[in-house]
C-alpha cells in the first residue's frame, strides 16, 4: 500500500503516471480504498465497479426481487463509500462490504416476514371491515417483463434449491461456494461462531443435495 501512495508526493509536483487512478484496475482493494480516502473519485468508482456484480448477486439471491436487490445494493455501496473512514484495513474490504450487504438483506427478509402477515389484514384490525381494508391486494396475475426476467434468471434447479434454504444457510453457502470466502471470513462477515458457520454450511449442502435429488426422482 505504502509505496504506491508515497510516489504521489514526488515526481515533480504531479501524480506519477503509474500512480494515477486510471491505473487502479490492478491495484489491491486496500490501495483503492486509500486512494478513495484521499478524495479520488475514480477510486470510488473502481470499488463500485469491482463489487457491483458480487454484491448485487448476493442480494438478488437473498431477496429474489431485482428492484429490491438493486435498492439494497445501492444502499450498501452508499453506506460503505460514505463510511470508508471507519473501514479497518486489517480485514478484507470484501468481508466488510458483504457484511453490510448481508445485514441489509436479512433486515429486509425480516421486514418481509412481518409484511406477509398483512395478507390477511393488519393484526391490529378489530373489525372485518378493517381487516379487509388493510389486507394486501393481490393484483393481476400476469407476469410483468421484470417478473419474467426474474423467473428466467432464478428459475433454474440450483437457484430454486438455494431459494428453499433458510436465509442464514443461504448467506453461508453463497459466501463460501460462490464468493469463495474462507470459513473464518464468513464467521466474521455474519458475526457467528466458526463452528456455527461450519454447521450451517454442511447442513445447507445436505439440503441442497436433497432438493436436487428430489427433482431428479
Amino acid at each position, binding site marked *: 500500500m505504502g509505496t504506491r501512495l508515497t510516489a*504521489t508526493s514526488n515526481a515533480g509536483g504531479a501524480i506519477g503516471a503509474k500512480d494515477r487512478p486510471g491505473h487502479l484496475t490492478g491495484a489491491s482493494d486496500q490501495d483503492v480504498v486509500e486512494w478513495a480516502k484521499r*478524495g479520488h473519485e475514480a477510486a470510488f468508482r473502481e470499488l463500485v465497479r469491482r463489487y457491483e456484480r458480487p454484491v448485487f448477486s448476493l442480494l438478488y439471491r437473498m431477496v429474489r426481487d431485482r428492484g429490491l436487490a438493486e435498492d439494497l445494493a445501492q444502499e450498501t455501496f452508499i453506506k460503505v463509500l*460514505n463510511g470508508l473512514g471507519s473501514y479497518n484495513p486489517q480485514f478484507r474490504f470484501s468481508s466488510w462490504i458483504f457484511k453490510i450487504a448481508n445485514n441489509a438483506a436479512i433486515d429486509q427478509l425480516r421486514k418481509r416476514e412481518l409484511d406477509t402477515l398483512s395478507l390477511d389484514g393488519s393484526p391490529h384490525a378489530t373489525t372485518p371491515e378493517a381487516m379487509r381494508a388493510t389486507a394486501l391486494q393481490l393484483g393481476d396475475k400476469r407476469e410483468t417483463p421484470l417478473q419474467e426476467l426474474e423467473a428466467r434468471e432464478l428459475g433454474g434447479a440450483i437457484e430454486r434449491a438455494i431459494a428453499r434454504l433458510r436465509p442464514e444457510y443461504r448467506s453461508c453457502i453463497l459466501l463460501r461456494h460462490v464468493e469463495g470466502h474462507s470459513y473464518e471470513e464468513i464467521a466474521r462477515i455474519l458475526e457467528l461462531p466458526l463452528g456455527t458457520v461450519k454447521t450451517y454450511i454442511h447442513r445447507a449442502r445436505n439440503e441442497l443435495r436433497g432438493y436436487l435429488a428430489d427433482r431428479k426422482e
Partner: protein
Amino acid sequence: MTPTPDTRHLTPDEVELWAEGLLPAARDAHLAQCDACRATAGGERKLFRDLAQLTRFAPEFGFVERVMAKVKIPTPSGPHFRSHSDS
C-alpha cells in the same frame, strides 16, 4: 506389520479438501476403498461445481452513476493532488 486400514468415513471438511485436491494421502486411501464415501464425495463435488458456475448478475445500467450521485467525496488531500485528473 501391515498398517491397519483407515475405516473412518470422510468428514464434510475432508470431502471439501478432497474436492480441492488437498486431502492427505492416508485419507485418500480410505476414499479409494469406500463406496459410501466416494458416492458422497462425488455428489458434493458436483454441487460445488454447480455453485461455482452460478451467474454473476448485473444491476441495471447506470448503477455506478446512481451510487456516485449519493457519495460524498472527501476533499482531496496531499500537496500534489490534481482535482480533474480522476475523471
